[in-house]
């Protein structure tokens, strides 16, 4: 009985890990829907957003290491601490500026290229942003604290202890994960409402369907792309805050992008609900597989590849994912 309850705990934790994946996958879906680009840089965007947030909050001098190296100075901090909300606002503004620059200097020039070229361009962008971010804020691990409570939630632990008798201590769930879930739900609902009921949202859906047709009804492709990349940037910021609070702001954050790929394979590249459900399935699947099979029989650390194997299976049997559009070939 206790084993079963621990299994449930694994599932719930998996659900919440899944929410985190979904947050990142969301950014991908948005950009892919509107421009057909798979933005490999989404993970690095999350990292850069988080780094900027911490940097602004703690009053870091941008490019401090470079300036000190070149000029022999010793600048590190401005000496002030900025309120978390203001810092988040500043970071959001930076991501908007980033979206504008990306559209202006990269997307505009690659309009008619095949998707694979665009994908490789985003790989280039990812490397560029990584080097740039490291140069600007330093590559050491930073703690990100915007006031979201962390650690095991004792209230839930207490309240669920009765389920398992005396050997069971109650479900151990991290408060941060709970916050993340709530925030993700709010974010997704906002996005869905936005795309269904506002003029810009409609324009986004038009562009996702057919660039030419959207142009012909007077929608400015470039403006839409800036908007989409800005939204993706904000989503990246939220994802960066959540992941960064949990595990610190460091390079491995950008590898989340690689985890998002299987999420999208499951959910379909063009579906917002698909990104959520795909993320949840991967989150649960990973944890459950490791719990039931990976740790006892395979030596553990199967989380590294389980998501991909699951995605592979989907690719073979249902390439468009659970919710994506079927691809019809025409000659």
């Amino acid at each position: 009985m206790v084993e079963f309850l621990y299994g449930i705990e694994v599932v719930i934790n998996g659900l919440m890990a899944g929410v985190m994946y979904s947050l990142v996958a969301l950014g991908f879906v948005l950009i892919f829907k509107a421009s057909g680009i798979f933005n490999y840089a989404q993970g690095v965007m999350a990292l850069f957003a988080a780094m900027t947030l911490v940097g602004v909050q703690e009053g870091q001098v941008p490019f401090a290491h470079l300036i000190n190296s070149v000029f022999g100075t010793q600048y590190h901090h401005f000496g002030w601490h900025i309120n978390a909300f203001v810092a988040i606002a500043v970071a959001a503004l930076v991501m908007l500026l980033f979206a504008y620059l990306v559209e202006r200097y990269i997307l505009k020039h690659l309009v008619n290229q095949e998707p694979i070229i665009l994908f490789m361009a985003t790989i280039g962008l990812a490397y560029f942003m990584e080097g740039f971010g490291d140069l600007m804020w330093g590559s050491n691990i930073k703690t990100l604290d915007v006031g979201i409570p962390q650690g095991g939630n004792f209230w839930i632990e207490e309240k669920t202890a009765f389920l398992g008798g005396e050997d069971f201590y109650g479900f151990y769930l991290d408060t941060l994960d709970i916050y993340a879930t709530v925030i993700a739900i709010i974010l997704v609902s906002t996005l869905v409402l936005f795309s269904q009921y506002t003029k810009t949202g409609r324009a986004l859906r038009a562009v996702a369907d057919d660039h030419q047709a959207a142009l012909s009804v007077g929608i400015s492709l470039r403006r839409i792309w800036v908007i989409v990349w800005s939204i993706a940037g904000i989503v990246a910021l939220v994802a960066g805050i959540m992941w960064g609070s949990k595990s610190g702001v460091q390079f491995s954050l950008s590898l989340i992008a690689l985890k998002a790929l299987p999420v999208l394979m499951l959910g379909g590249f063009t579906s917002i609900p698909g990104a959520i459900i795909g993320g949840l399935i991967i989150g649960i699947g990973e944890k459950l597989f490791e719990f039931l099979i990976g740790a006892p029989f395979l030596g553990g650390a199967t989380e590294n590849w389980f998501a991909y194997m699951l995605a592979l299976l989907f690719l073979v049997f249902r390439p468009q994912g659970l919710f994506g559009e079927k691809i019809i070939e025409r000659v």
Partner: protein
Amino acid sequence: MLYREAGDFKVSYQADQQTFPIRFDRLFFWALLAAAYFVVPFFINDYWANAVLLPFLIYGVASIGLNILTGYCGQVSLGSGGFMAVGAYTCYKMMTAFPDLNLAFCILAGGVTTAIVGIMFGLPSLRIKGFYLAVVTLAAQFFLVWMFNKVPWFYNYSATGMISSPERTMFGYAITGPNATPAATYLFCLTFLVVLAFLGRNLTRGSVGRKWMAIRDMDIAAEIIGVNPLMAKITAFGVSSFYVGVAGAMIFSVYLGAVEVTEAFGIQKSFLLLFMIIIGGLGSILGSLVGAAFMVLMPVLLKNIMVGSFGWAIDIAAHFEFIIIGGLIVFFLIVEPHGLAQLWRIIKEKMRLWPFPH
């Protein structure tokens, strides 16, 4: 006027099809090859071998392999790192299981095994395209690295999990292990590159190369005019993985000597190879080599300039490396998707007419 085609008429199709149609190019190539074999070994030292020449030769082989798959046949692969690991570990098992077996055979065995594994992971490409395929190759990358980490049989149950290359000799000279001289390792790798580049060039200019390119450009039309897409993709995966596996085996046995799989063959290596063929030029053997040279030399140059001359901290050079690489990738994709090789061809065209403008 020096570099001209005028008056150099081809009177046979064979002459038209040769790799270096311009005489100057041909002479230059043979001179370069002669220098590589007969001059360099006398001047080479440890630093040049390990920092520049060996990585260039070995990554040259690997990038030709990846270019065959991605540049010629249009199948994206992000799993090259994992495939190099397959080559390396196969080589290791062969070296330890058959101590008397010539090193070249162990390396070739690495290539063949990788070809088989590559074909296996490439089978989904029959139904999946574009970056869906990239996901499959990513899966291969992570799975293979995990496997070589976790399954002790691969590293002969050693406690460290690392594999190291026992000493092997050829014609009496040590090629691997601590006694190997830079000249010996250099010549060994050079020979592999020359032979494999020759074979690669022939494959890409023949009918199988045209089948690959047809699949890349328009796979449905290709099938309708008679290209078997299954065979084309499988051969592309097979040949490409062979090259990549050979390169991985060489990285392990000759270059590094001892290897830890996540660090030596992780996803960053997959990206490194991808960048080589993008910058060098997709769909070009010369481009693969140029790209390999560029990606090997650039960090060395950067470090020498920034740290050596300017005295900046070493991690700043690393950050700039990322910035420059990322920027160049985007730049080449926008301006010249056929990379440095195409820029070189354009320069040569201008040179043929120089000093006349047209």
